[in-house]
């Protein structure tokens, strides 16, 4: 009898050897136009400027939380 979430799993289907998974990502390329973060309120951060503004917004909210 498996405890908790393990009980909801199907049986293991595939076993990957050490290093095998990394080989799948060796062809990784630089960021592309598809690499777009979308905020929880739906804003597409499709330029560096938008990403930077979002990061600053998050950090400002943290400062407010810690000050408040």
């Amino acid at each position, binding site marked *: 009898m498996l405890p908790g979430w*393990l009980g*909801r*799993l*199907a*049986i*293991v*289907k*595939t*076993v*990957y050897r*050490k290093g*095998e*998974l*990394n080989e*799948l*990502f060796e*062809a*990784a*390329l*630089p*960021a*592309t*136009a*598809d*690499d*777009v*973060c*979308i*905020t*929880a309120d*739906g804003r597409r*951060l*499709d*330029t*560096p400027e938008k*990403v*930077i503004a*979002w*990061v600053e917004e*998050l*950090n400002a909210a*943290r400062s407010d939380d810690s000050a408040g």
Partner: protein
Amino acid sequence: MLGAERLTEDTDCLARRAAENLDRLGAAMRELSARLRVAGLTDAEAVALPVRVDGKTLAAAEISTWTTDAGRFDVLMDIPARDGRRLRYEDVLDSVVTVEINGAVLRVASLDVIIASKEWADRPKDHQALPELRRLRDGLPEA
């Protein structure tokens, strides 16, 4: 992981939204030196961004795209069903396929779920990927 030969070049992680889970995910990503992956920024520029990789940052994005020392890693809070409904982690849990890597058990979205999300996304790269995914799902031989 489910047999497709076409590489997506990243790992998509559908995260359970619970705060403690996102904190754990953030901690694991910090171990892998995660930095945002942003079109128009080099990796060095992304490293310099003052981003705290933690549960709060992950929770603030529906989709966040990262680079880690282990490869590209995208965190999703939900994925689209064929009809556009947004499916959360709990919605797909019963249909996952489990895969073991180095002794760790991973839950991988089923081909049905992946196909549905790509049909909804409807991008050129999805159209390219779908025939192989459907063939694998249906157990058909390679054309």
